[in-house]
């Protein structure tokens, strides 16, 4: 019964996806596509041009770490990108919750495959830092370095709506944690997990465009929860809601 259910579900999902993609493809007559602002869509900015966004990322904490306290933790999210060549661009991202922050810098290479389908490959390095000084509770700080090789596929669903699917590997390079004057360091290179992001970019109101989507990360460590000292050697699920205004 379970097998049958899985087969039916798989077939339905596959057919559904095929029809959705095909329908969008068939439904559009060949025409020129208007230039739109975007942050996630895998299309390089013109050389020398900047792209920016500001928004928030809400990360839902896994029950293994926060137990009965299941919350969606917001972080302020800034993105800035600059075109280097027709295909190559720099991408930087800063996320902060004030007591802990994360700065990423990466390089992306993007190319159109058709007039609607785009592809990019990227490599980002991020450094994160957290510090908590709370009387009788914390005298702790930690910082670390992670790297994220990624591939993004972008598809112009309609003239106003663009979908980006990004897959990333999460690799730990360095971790240092200190309580009081005692510190531990892990500097082994280890695959920490992977993540998939689904983002829609479109106009929202007036001339303001937005990025809205979700990121599903399965990882052994999440920098935002460093102060919970995850001891599990297994990937936990960190769903994220992403909302950003493209400036």
């Amino acid at each position, binding site marked *: 019964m379970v097998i049958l259910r899985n087969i039916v579900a798989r077939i339905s999902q596959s057919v559904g996806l095929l029809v959705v993609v095909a329908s969008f493809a068939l439904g559009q007559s060949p025409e020129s596509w208007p230039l739109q602002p975007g942050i996630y869509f895998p299309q390089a900015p013109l050389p020398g041009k900047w792209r920016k966004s500001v928004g928030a990322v809400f990360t839902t904490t896994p*029950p*293994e770490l926060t*137990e*009965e306290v299941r919350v969606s933790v917001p972080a302020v999210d800034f993105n800035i990108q600059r075109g280097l060549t027709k295909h190559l661009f720099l991408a930087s991202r800063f996320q902060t919750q004030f007591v802990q922050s994360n700065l990423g810098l990466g390089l992306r290479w993007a190319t159109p495959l058709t007039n609607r389908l785009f592809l990019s490959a990227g490599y980002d390095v991020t450094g994160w830092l957290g510090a*908590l000084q709370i*009387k*009788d*509770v*914390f*005298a*702790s700080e930690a910082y670390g370095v992670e790297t994220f090789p990624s591939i993004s596929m972008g598809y112009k669903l309609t003239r106003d709506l663009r979908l980006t699917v990004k897959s990333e590997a999460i690799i730990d390079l360095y971790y240092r*944690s*200190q*309580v*009081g*004057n*005692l510190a*531990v360091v*892990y500097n082994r290179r280890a695959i920490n997990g992977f993540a998939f992001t689904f983002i829609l970019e479109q106009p929202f109101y007036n001339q303001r465009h937005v990025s809205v989507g979700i990121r599903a990360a399965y990882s052994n460590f999440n920098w935002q929860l460093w*102060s919970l*000292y995850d*001891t*599990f*050697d*297994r990937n936990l699920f960190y769903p994220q809601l992403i909302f950003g205004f493209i400036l």
Partner: protein
Amino acid sequence: MEGVYTVSNGASQFGDQAVLKWTYLFTGTDTTHYLSIFTGTDATYFNLEGTPEADSLVLKGYWRKLVNASIGEVRLILREKHNGKLQLFKGSLAPGDTLVVDGLYGDKSAALNNQLTLTYNRPLNPKPFSIMAHRSGGRTSDLLPASENSVEIIKLASRLGATGIEVDVRFTKDGVPVLYHDNTLNLRLIQKNGLTGPLEDYTYQQLSTLVRLINGEKIPTLEEALETVVNNTSLNFVWLDTKYIGPMDKVQAIQQKYRQKALLAGRNLRIIIGLPTTEAVDSYKALANKDNTPILCELDTSITRSLDARIWAPRWTLGPQTDEVLAMQAEGLTVFVWTLDEPEFIREFISQNHFDGILSNYSPVVAYYHYIEQQ
């Protein structure tokens, strides 16, 4: 047979050292002997029972890594190395002989086909040290075979390396003290039954009829838990964590009742009341008579001193606080640290050698690093 052993075959899975320690479970007049093995990787413990087979002692059971879901069966035999030759252990060692425990282990449901060889190296660190298991033994999220704060995990605690346990005390709506950690009934801790909200909204009858912990056990009363500690285990320390707000006299009465029971049974058992908050401190201060009511204070040193507590227990995330720890110990206090699970920090805290005990969800890790420590 207890001691620190060198791991030869099996080192890639379990690390190059292992601690072997016997524990006991009493059931009426029967005593069951268990051999625990703690290794330095992935919070691993072995739960083995010894059975005489032919002319040898066979140790059978399972191994488990707490940090992930790795588990497998194991079958070991006790041997001795005599004049360089391996032979079955005859019951006593001649000078120059070495104990060897070897056999096979499996992975998940696979057959036992991996070699494991442990060779005696040195005795366990004899320094007194409290290894206290959080939530009566360990966290439900570590996929233990018994639920946290259950009678069953209290019976398992020694095999996980603990010499004492911390239990979480709350009151039902009709005033029965029970063991439960969280603020609400939730699916992290209990099997799905639709009931929501604080445990304190329900009577003991409602809870005992309709609510089961995640592995099927009942929520135990504090008395059932202490009865188990006194009658079934060799644990020597119980830390009653105050999760309730309100009068403490019922818990005090139970603490004193089971202290007397332990004394009558010839047990060296300390049952102390933990004060984690200012509300708990106020409840303690409101007690009419504080005689024979040992307390542990988790707040700062000045509050601890003002209460005349005999144990100070700061959070580990404040760091080693060496000056404060030494000062409190100089005044005759015992100092524990809680709730420390990160293996590298456990190793560092133990190697610094200042605290008198560690409260942890990973008592196998604390046991390993404590027993291998060389004075």
